[in-house]
């Protein structure tokens, strides 16, 4: 086009002058008709609902996995033993209390046993005489009577032990053949018996102490409870529980601070009211669950060659101009896909697999455009030339994606050698080069695993990956869904 060549005729000049820059105001509603037909920014074509769905799934999975890690169920055996222990302590205490009360009644009528008492017992008897007049609700007195009764019972049993010991001595002496040695033997037997006695007595005394402590603990518990639940004396009593502990126990008993004999093993009754804090004494290793035989955690990695299968749509209003679309059937369609991640075993039938993916795909699509106003060349910047021939175009690119995926695995068959499963999941992939597009994929796969070692499984997994959104070439003439199909091969490792 060269307008200068056409400026010979004055008649033409007149029209050229008039109309070269002629403008006419279009009707205002025309823009409203044009606007809906305009292309929108490809970056806004993201399928927000799909992204939201993927995010939601990831979030829920993360939450579920996190919860599973945190709330470890207590081992039932530990729980049972803990409860039994607690129950037995309670039972024992209750029993001994009953027994003591019962014995107290019997005590009043029993006079024979009193004669067997030693000096210590006499003192108690004195107390008992006082008690007889006011054997009543006085707690301190009751406590003394109970103490005395306990000691008496133990002494009674000691007497019988003594008889047994003497019987043993007699038996021993009869075994000895020489009559000369009889006396000596008797002596030694007596010594043995007396050792035996002192040992047993000591043991019984210990038992006595322990019963004392049981009794006092009962009181202690009562006191603690009353202290804890009655705000009045709260401060003093509670502080005394913890402060006077290291002081003289006798003094503490005299001052009714019988709580001082509490030690770390005697928390049973207290724990009745504080069951939750007690749980912290139960140690269950946090990670144990995942490493049990039934719920292993696997790591996996895999690689797969893939072939792209495109769904191609000519873009919008240009449908009339874009035609002759063909996909190059050579190696350009080949790509590569690799992934690594972890597999959570949810149940016998279900596993959850999540990880990172890297994809390299290649596109090469030929198409033709009718050149109506589409190809413009400006050779010298003075004019613009238009080419009217059909133009062959190629949409060719190599894209790298980094993505994350989550898949649910359903195990169809679980054999000795092979297991079969179906994988369904979603994947979000961000394009690292070019226009940094986000692509969503729905993945479906059928897989077969085979154990190849103690803790390793090989899997092969034909996979189809359906693109949830479209890509657009630079000219926006094509809308392409880069679906892919591949043969995934990988290894699972069980973590121990």
């Amino acid at each position: 086009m060269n307008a200068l060549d056409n400026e010979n005729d004055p008649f033409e000049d007149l029209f050229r002058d008039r109309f070269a820059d002629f403008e006419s105001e279009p009707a205002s509603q025309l823009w409203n008709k044009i606007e809906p037909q305009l292309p929108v920014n490809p970056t806004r074509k993201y399928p927000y609902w799909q992204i939201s769905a993927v995010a939601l799934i990831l979030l829920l999975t993360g939450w579920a996995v996190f919860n599973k890690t945190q709330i470890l169920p207590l081992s039932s055996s530990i729980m049972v033993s803990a409860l039994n222990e607690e129950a037995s302590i309670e039972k024992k205490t209750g029993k001994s209390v009953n027994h003591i009360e019962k014995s107290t009644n019997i005590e009043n009528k029993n006079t024979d046993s009193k004669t067997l008492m030693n000096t210590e017992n006499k003192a108690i008897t004195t107390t008992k005489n006082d008690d007889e007049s006011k054997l009543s609700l006085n707690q301190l007195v009751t406590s003394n009577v109970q103490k005395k009764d306990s000691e008496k019972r133990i002494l009674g049993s000691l007497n019988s032990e003594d008889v047994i010991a003497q019987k043993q001595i007699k038996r021993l002496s009869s075994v000895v053949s020489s009559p000369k040695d009889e006396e000596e033997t008797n002596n030694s037997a007596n010594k043995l018996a007396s050792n035996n006695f002192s040992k047993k007595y000591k043991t019984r005394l210990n038992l006595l102490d322990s019963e004392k402590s049981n009794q006092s603990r009962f009181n202690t518990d009562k006191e603690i409870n009353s202290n804890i639940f009655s705000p009045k004396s709260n401060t003093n009593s509670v502080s005394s529980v913890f402060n006077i502990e290291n002081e003289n126990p006798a003094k503490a008993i005299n001052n009714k601070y019988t709580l001082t004999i509490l030690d770390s093993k005697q928390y049973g009754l207290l724990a009745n009211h504080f069951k939750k804090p007690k749980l912290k004494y139960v140690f269950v290793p946090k990670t144990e669950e995942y490493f049990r035989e039934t719920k292993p955690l696997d790591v996996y990695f895999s690689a797969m060659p893939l072939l792209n299968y495109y769904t191609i749509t000519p873009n919008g209003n240009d449908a009339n101009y874009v035609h002759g679309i063909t996909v190059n059937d050579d190696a350009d369609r080949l790509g590569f896909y690799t992934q690594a991640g972890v597999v959570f075993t949810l149940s016998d039938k279900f596993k959850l697999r999540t990880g990172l993916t890297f994809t390299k795909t290649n596109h090469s699509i030929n198409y033709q455009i009718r050149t109506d106003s589409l190809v413009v060349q400006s050779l010298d910047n003075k004019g613009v030339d238009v080419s009217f021939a059909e133009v062959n175009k190629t949409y060719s690119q190599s894209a790298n994606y980094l993505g994350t995926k989550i898949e649910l695995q359903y195990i169809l068959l679980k054999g000795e050698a092979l297991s079969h499963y179906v994988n369904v999941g979603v994947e979000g992939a961000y394009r690292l080069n070019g226009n940094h597009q986000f692509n969503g994929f729905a993945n479906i796969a059928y897989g077969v695993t085979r154990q190849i070692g103690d803790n390793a499984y090989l899997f092969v997994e034909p996979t189809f990956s359906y693109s949830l959104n479209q890509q657009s070439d630079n000219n926006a003439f094509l809308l392409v869904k880069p679906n892919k199909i591949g043969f995934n091969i990988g290894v699972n490792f069980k973590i121990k």
Partner: protein
Amino acid sequence: MVNEQELVKACQNNDRKAQTAFYNLYKGKLMGVCRRYTRTPDEAEDIYQEAFVKIFNSIHTLEKAGAVGAWVRQTVIRTAINYYHANLKFQQNTDYENTLLSNDDYPNLLATLSNEELLILINQLPDGYRMVFNLYVIDGYSHAEIGEMLGVSESTSKSQLSRAKELLRKQLKPLGIISYERT
């Protein structure tokens, strides 16, 4: 005012605000072109809409943003030519004699005619004549280019231009306009 090249770049990114600004920038000029190439305002509007949609859909192909003015004009012209081709078989030869103006009150100088009045003369030219007249006289294409664009030979383009001018003169003559010298 936003730099025209920046506007083009924004349009290439399909920025809706830029598209609106671009439309407002070129709407008058492009409607002017459409009016010249068509017989009626309705046809002009059809071409106008189609052309703008094309422009925004293919603005990515524009390599030199500085040539955008010429490019949009070309796009509209090409759209008009497509329209002409598409409707060629439905067109009938116009009875030229009936289209002659017969208003004796017209002044005797072409310069005194308004653009709209002159536009009516152009609009009333037979489609083929009108296309060649516009392409050659106003838009400056060579006969070779016009022949290629319209799918006719170069000599056909020349003869159609000659007939178009003759027809215009005939239409102007009754109006007393015989002098075409520039004023």
